[in-house]
């Protein structure tokens, strides 16, 4: 047993190494597919419930059994970490969010490794290969179109700190949303751009009491009486509901909620002009367990998820994008490259180092 484990670990490490050095072409995919058929059932932990649908489709196609456990983003990281630490063989593949945290606990520790399957190697941009991205999610600013039928009320992110928006902006609690914390580290990293945006908007330089424009924005925003919510769904519904005199505005909620607009008759649209960023996007990452006893089946499953067919369960709404360039955007949505130019991402190292400062600034000013 330990023998097999060591071999599997070495193998996985080798493969990862090979992928990184671009020797990966040498990998014999046919052999992997054959070996996959001899291996046991796969266990997958996933933050998105659609993985279960993809797994069912995969099983029909290949006959390889896949069991999916759906977990919240931090629960998944916690559980995979504790299990790996205890040496319990559980998840073979994880579909994980909040890569900043997951990288520290699961990747840097060697419990999970990156694997780049053939399709991704061929089609994905290099920056989307390590970590291997299943898809990107974007989070945007939205407003009620009954109140603003013909113009976008957002000019600059600094508008949200002005009296006009006082008590009217909704955001999911940054304190309990890991991705928001990551996203705001980018506001710290790109303070200069925020500062410039302030000057563009108000014609005068920004006078700060905080260390940088990112934290200054957070402070002013929180002092402007925002409404802190616990769910993105409730934000999009509250912003978009018909028949409101003074509807709130939504910040950083997932764009995929706009899928419900026709079904729920929401008067909702997203800002396409807010300066300097339309929001942010974050990756859903695929990783392979270093100690997996079914590494080949895991690889075949990972490969499947990077194909358009495998991604299908996610392709039923706007706001979710595979790095696979052959994806046709959801009706009415823009392709990912369009968003990539207009949304901010975050720098993983900078985010890891500064996330605590962001959370502290939030906690400091959020409490009334």
């Amino acid at each position, binding site marked *: 047993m330990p023998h097999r484990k060591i071999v599997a670990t070495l193998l996985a490490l080798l493969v990862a190494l090979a992928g990184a050095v671009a020797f990966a072409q040498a990998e014999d995919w046919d052999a992997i597919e054959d070996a996959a058929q001899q291996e046991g059932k796969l*266990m997958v932990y996933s933050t998105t*419930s659609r993985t*279960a649908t993809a797994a069912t489709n995969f099983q029909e196609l290949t006959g390889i059994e896949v*069991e999916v456990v*759906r*977990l*919240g983003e*931090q*629960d998944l990281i*916690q559980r995979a970490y*504790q*299990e790996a*630490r*205890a*040496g*319990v063989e*559980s998840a073979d593949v994880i579909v994980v969010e909040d890569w*900043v*945290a997951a990288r*520290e*606990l699961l990747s*840097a520790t060697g419990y999970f490794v990156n694997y780049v399957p053939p399709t991704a190697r061929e089609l994905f941009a290099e920056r989307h290969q390590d970590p291997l991205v299943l898809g990107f999610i974007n989070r945007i600013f939205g407003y009620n179109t009954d109140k603003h039928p013909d113009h976008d009320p957002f000019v600059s992110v600094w508008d949200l700190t002005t009296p006009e928006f006082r008590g009217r902006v*909704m955001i999911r*609690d940054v*304190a*309990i949303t890991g991705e928001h*914390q990551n996203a705001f580290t980018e506001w710290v990293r790109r303070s200069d751009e925020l500062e410039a945006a302030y000057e563009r908007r108000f014609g005068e330089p920004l006078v700060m009491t905080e260390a940088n424009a990112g934290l200054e924005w957070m402070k002013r925003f929180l002092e402007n009486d925002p*409404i*802190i*919510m*616990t769910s993105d*769904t*409730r934000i999009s*519904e*509250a*912003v978009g*509901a018909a*028949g*409101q*005199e*003074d509807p*709130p505005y939504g910040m950083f909620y997932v764009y995929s909620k706009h899928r*419900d607009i026709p*079904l*729920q*008759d929401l008067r909702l649209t997203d800002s396409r002009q807010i300066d300097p960023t339309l929001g942010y996007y974050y990756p859903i990452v695929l990783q392979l367990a270093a100690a997996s006893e079914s590494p080949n089946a895991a690889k075949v499953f990972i490969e499947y998820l990077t194909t358009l067919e495998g991604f299908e369960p996610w392709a039923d709404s706007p706001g979710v994008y595979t790095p696979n360039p052959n994806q046709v955007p959801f009706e009415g949505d823009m392709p990912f490259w369009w968003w990539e130019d207009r949304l901010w991402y975050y720098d993983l190292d900078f985010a*890891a*180092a*500064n*996330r*605590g*400062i962001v*959370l*502290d600034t939030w*906690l*400091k*000013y*959020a*409490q*009334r």
Partner: protein
Amino acid sequence: MRTRLQRFRLNVTPQRVLAVLFLLVLGYLVVVPLGVMLQETFVVHPLERFQIPGSMPGDFTLAHWERTFVSENAYAFFYRPLINTLIISLGLAFLALAIGGTLAWLVVRTDLPFKGLISNAAIIPYVMPSWTLALAWITLFKNERIGGTQGIFTALTGVSTPDWFAYGLFPITITLALHYFPFGFMLIGGALRNIDAQLEESAELLGAGRLTILRRVVVPLVLPAIFSTFLLTFSRGLGTFGTPAFLGGPVREFVLSTTLYANLIGQRPGIGYLVAFVMISLGVLVLYMDHRIIGTRRSFVTISGKGARAGLVALGRWRGPVAALVLTFIFGVIAVPIVALAVDTVMLRPGIYAWSNFSLHYWIGEASRAIGLGTGEPGILRNPQLMGALGNTMQLAITVALICGVLGMLIGYTVVRLRGTLISRLLDQLSFLPYLMPSIALGSIFLAMFAVARGPIPSLYGTFWLLVIACVVSYLPYAVKAGISAMMQVGPELEEAAIMAGASWWTRMRRVLFPVQKATYFSGMLLPFISVTRELSLLILLVTPATQLATTITLRYTDRGWYPYTNAMVLVLVTIVITSTVVSRRLMKTDLAKGLGG
């Protein structure tokens, strides 16, 4: 001369054997997690190293303590949430006591009509998950601040509710009190029921008035139950996360549990566990006060061999109005959230009140992407996975309730029989500690403890029994509280008489001690049963596909904002729990009459 061993063996009584056994087991299940938690507050965790200059993960540090208690921003980080938490917990505890106590007195000691109905219904608010009341509150009283469709109150009256009324500490306290008052009702009701009428009759003979009797006889006798209620509700106020986050966020009023959660999400478990530790300490403080006060009053033996039920207070002309008031209150508290949930499950699209929009699609519909929210999921009643998970939940709830019931009775017996000894105090307090541990923290610690074999304990990873252990430890406090308060009221003479009659320990437990206090033990089992059916955060890290529970599997809907499914599932659970509660109460009641009335 006797050797030590001989002396010890002479002194070996069932209660001592039990005491040692329980101490060992609880020591492992309670002290170890607590130790782990405390230790973690002195350690640098991976992402924390960036905020602690020059540190590496695993290093020893005092930074978490400094930051929390004495840093420049300690007020915002810790003291303000602490104050909010205390306001909520105290308010909640007093309200729950007032409501539960009044109801208990009305039901047990007066000639109020519809008693059966009221006592069954009064438990239901606790059966519903606490967030349902929060949700109902928002549906009723929300104002323009959080947008969306109008609140019902505003829609009907045209009056906009003020923010402090709609969100924040006030509604958090009220909704939690409405959720937890059944604790007071059950515990105080149980205690009142057990008071020997002779005590009150004697007082009356001595010329005491009704009020004096209440103050000098009844209240002191139910004091342990009052303190238990206070302790149980206060501690729940410390730990609850969902309601404060949901109702507090809109006006940015935060509590310790949100702080704990934020730091766990932010990957700062050191600070998170420290907050958890503070929450536990606050609970311990109340526990200590409880012991100081109850401890000095010695025990009240109220069930003796003989005894009679007290006469009922006649409410006279107030009988009708009081009954109407009580019924309106209870059904309001039950019906509003249930209706709010139910309406949501039969509307294809939320917020559209048209006949064409009503449908049973989310209950029995076939999977479709064209109807309603276009989820492509079958209605919950025809989803075999959901039904399987529901089966697991029921199996778990029953197993946990039975184990808790038996353990609660035995620990109660041991604690009371060894009263005044250190071992008794230790056991009592140990068995209560898990109640004070925030379940998000406990789940991950249990996972770490049981994932691998340690000494004689095999790896329980992925088994049903791991779930059972986690739940038993978590909910044992309910059963132990019940066990202790039941046993406190049983005089030793009953057991002594049985011993004289030659009954073995087993027979004494089975034929004497258990039957006389069945109702209280039953309450002690009911609470774990109910709590298991809706536990999520404790178990989320421990379930595997084979052991999926109703709550964990429902996450897939919550996560995509498909609330009709989530709510339908909650309704199914609530229905099952209410039915089993009512049925078993009915069964118990007949037995109760036999046990006490004979």
